[in-house]
């Protein structure tokens, strides 16, 4: 699982500057996600500003995270579709301590599970508001943080959410 391990590099991403949309506090740093053939559609979709989920053509179950087959019926006839990007906060925590440099400057920040209209929950950050104002049930919409694109590569984004 070398690809999976690689993205732990995020934790040591250093202190590069991030533009953060007229806020004094920087967002967490988002490195270019580690992509493999199972997850490429998701991250490339995020690079285009689309939240991409998977649905099984055989049993119609929506699944997240993306996989090379439907783990409800084991069919490999799985399609990607663009979700509405709307949902509500299922649960959250305001993180006050994280020694990793990529996150230290963003403290306090909100990690959350967002319940999507399509069924799955996504682990994400809630941005664009005072962390203290987040609550369970808060309506949110997806928002995409761009990541650095190496020459010749397809842009990738990182989905996070803000109050709707």
């Amino acid at each position, binding site marked *: 699982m070398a690809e999976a391990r690689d993205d732990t590099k995020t934790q040591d991403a250093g202190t590069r500057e991030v533009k953060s949309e007229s806020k004094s506090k920087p967002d*967490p740093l*988002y490195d270019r996600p580690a992509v493999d053939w199972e997850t490429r559609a998701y991250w490339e979709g995020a690079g285009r500003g689309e939240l991409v989920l998977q649905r099984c053509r055989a049993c119609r179950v929506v699944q997240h995270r993306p996989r090379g087959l439907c783990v409800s019926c084991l069919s490999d006839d799985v399609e990607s579709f663009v979700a509405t990007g709307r949902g509500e906060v299922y649960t959250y925590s305001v*993180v006050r301590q994280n020694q*990793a440099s990529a*996150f230290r400057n963003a403290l306090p920040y909100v990690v959350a599970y967002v319940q999507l209209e399509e069924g799955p*929950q996504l682990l994400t950050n809630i941005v664009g508001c005072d962390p203290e104002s987040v609550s369970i049930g808060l309506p949110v919409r997806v928002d995409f943080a761009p990541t650095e694109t190496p020459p010749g590569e397809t842009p990738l984004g990182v989905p996070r959410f803000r109050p709707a």
Partner: protein
Amino acid sequence: MTADGKSSGRVAIAGIHEYESRWAPDKTSFQIMGECAREALADAGLSLSDVDGLFAANMTMGAMGVVGVAEYLNMKPRYLDGTNIGGSSFVAHVAHAAAAIQTGRCEVALILYGSTAASDAMAIGTGGGGGRDPGAAFVSPYGMTLVSSYAMVARRHMHEFGTTSEQLADIAVSTRQHASLNPHAKMREPITRQDVLESRLIADPLHLLDCCIISDGGGAVIVTSLERARDLRQPPIVVRGTGESVAHREIGAPDLMTIAAKQSGEQAFAMAGLEPTDIDVATIYDSFTITVLLTLENLGFCKRGEGGAFVENGGIGLGGRLPVNPDGGGLSSNHSGMRGIFLVIEAVRQLRGGLGARQVEGAEIALAHGTGGYLGLMHSGATLILGKD
């Protein structure tokens, strides 16, 4: 396993040792394992040459795991098990050892753990973004620390059931009270509910004192047939029931209030032919206060959503409705990254008896439950029910 009281096919814990120090900057994790092996063998009245099954796990050993432990101790066991399912591993090792002994794969199993997490200054709960599973790319961008994965579960429990920070705090208070009776515990000064609530927030709603400590430590457990255990130094502590399970994000919409303990607990109780009301003392993995509360619910000690009422005001203290972690747990006594072996050890100590002020009087049946991993993301559970011979 037979329930007729005969020893045939039954398995027992014959030796234990918990490394006494919580700070060992002059030791390696292997050295701690070796010293614990020596002491547990002495406790049982066995020698290293009696051991033919070796089980080990920790957070730092290499990819071949237990093989390196065999090499370090110059052992050539005929049965190896390096199962690593997180902090619960050692509870599972007891179950695996029992099965191996029952099927003749080994006769004397040695389970080892050693860690220098504190002197290595590991930021176990508050570093990075967490997770090295194939789905890590969906986790690591978001800075979900270990603490915050448990905190999100706590937040949801509060939302669904009205559980309060005060109720969670009472878990830490009871556990510290127990630790004050354990001369080896790392934190022994009693605390109040207010102390917990006024300690700084690490990840809302969990405060510093809702979190386990970080120590160095290690332990060893020896499992053998009940027949053989009866000829050894200590009264045998019989393995009555075991269960293992896992809980995770499923395909995106899990019920965070149902944790692995539900499935593993049902298996263990069914095997033992016992009910939660039969348990005299429990050792429950207490990485965080919420872990204890949710584990008690999922094991069936109380109904779903009623964990707050169960634990508050000394409910899990000595003399309470169910004494939990009388050694002071990971919250106050010993947490060096993977606490599971200490759950087994304290359960055995309580059933052997003679612990003085922290002894649960008349304890006949004990339950140990380990949780490994990230409660709100992906975790394992292992349940063990032990009884006197």
